[in-house]
């Protein structure tokens, strides 16, 4: 039997939800003051996901890097590998906000898109 602690981020109460499980089966959830806390703890335990925001190198733009974001949630455990994968990428200016920079990162089905317009460097 193992006890996990998840601090719920849904509202400022920040309930410290305690989830007890054995061999992956959830036995008990407590300390949450509403249903959201329960849902959050379950999500964090079974399949924690995150939005990834980072930068990607750019060729020929007014800035050397462009901010990008994942269009959807990525499994938390894949985040670091995603960063390594995206480090290899070089995008070309001009870029429009929402342009796809990387398709289906690490087979998650998630796109990485640009967060902004980035003009070409005139120089």
């Amino acid at each position, binding site marked *: 039997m193992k006890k996990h602690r998840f601090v719920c981020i849904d509202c400022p109460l920040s309930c410290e939800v305690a989830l007890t499980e054995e061999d992956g089966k959830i036995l008990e959830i407590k300390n949450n003051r509403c249903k959201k806390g329960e849902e959050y703890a379950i999500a964090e335990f079974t399949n924690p996901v995150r939005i990834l*925001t980072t930068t990607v190198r750019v060729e020929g733009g*007014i800035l050397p890097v462009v901010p990008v974001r994942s269009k959807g949630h990525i499994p938390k455990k894949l985040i670091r590998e995603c*960063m390594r994968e995206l480090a290899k990428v070089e995008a070309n200016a001009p870029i429009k906000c929402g342009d796809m920079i990387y398709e289906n990162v690490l087979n998650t089905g998630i796109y990485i898109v640009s*967060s902004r317009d980035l003009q070409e460097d005139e120089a």
Partner: protein
Amino acid sequence: MIDVDVAVIGGGPAGLAAALSAYRNGAKNVWLLERNPELGGILPQCIHDGFGNFIFKEMLTGPEYAQRYIDEVKKTGITVKLNTMVLEMGPERLIAVNPKDGLLDIKAKAIILAMGCRERTRPQILIPGYRPAGIYTAGVAQRYINMEGVMPGKKVVILGSGDVGLIMARRFTLEGAKVEGVYEIMSNPGGLTRNIVQCLNDYDIPLHLSHTIVNIKGKKRVEEVTVAQVDSQMTPIKSTKRDISCDTLLLSVGLIPENELSKMADVAMDPITGGPVVDEAMETSVSGIFACGNVAHVHDLVDDVSKAGETAGKGAAEHISDKIKKRKVPVIVKGGRNIRYVVPQIIRNEDFDKRITFYLRVNDVEEDVKLVLLSGEKLLYKRKENVVKPPEMVRLTLLSKFLENVGNELTIEAQK
């Protein structure tokens, strides 16, 4: 001399919203002056998400949020001046300069201050020791990583658990640096819980509350910092000193509204917010000068900044067209029990808007409180809050008609 209707100083979220609002409320000749080569203010470097949850009902990144407003501004006849620094300001006049136009001597019927804020620096918090390279305020490091594409350091210690510091703890880690820990002098974290979880817990970065930095070593580049626990008076406890070898010290120790121009125009300042005293139209003590966004008081959410900008823009437009009717008796808004500050600090207009929103911060964390708005003994508004925390700004919105005959003073307080 150039004649404009409204001059907005600062093209960040406050200024963008203000310029759009002024234009849409009837001001024809609106100039937006921005010192950077592009619009967006601080948003282009805030590449994380969490912006726009209220206004757009989406979790956007900083650049995405800015892009929405920038795209809107492009559709209007607003004159945007980039690379433009305002050097001097007085009532209805300002002097600015940029490489293309040279000196701009501008006469404006209304001026909207949206210059944002600057970061508190190392000397301001009196950290002893040397002054090597490798000491950065979090915002500067953020710019370097997210816009210049360079890493300020490899082994980082962070002082301050405000949101910028937490965000940067994650950013440094994701880019391959080691963040040894986040040290916070208060006994409570300064940033949103969401960030504690997703920036520190996710990456096993320890948060040490009631700690501060008491020495910096390194003559050329940071080599080591010394941390220590502090007592209830925030005095370092010598026996708890611990040396940490690192090459970067990141400071996230507070934001200060940038009001040098405001002071030039003799605008009355609120010593608690650090910004101008404003009324419900965001107008300052100087007729025709408005202030919105972080220049008035430091916000947590950009959505609130945009709302304030929108208000100021409307105020400026109505000021020009003489639509604003002033009350006979202005109402001073005071913060009572456990209230650090309230904005606006004064209600001066009759019927400016259907609703009025008060923005406030509490002094101490409290659970199960009732936020009340009182006019003497009369209760005008109340709302229960499960918990109130200093880092989380509170909004109280009520219909303006409830403030019709309130006399000359209002108090907002947190009651148990």
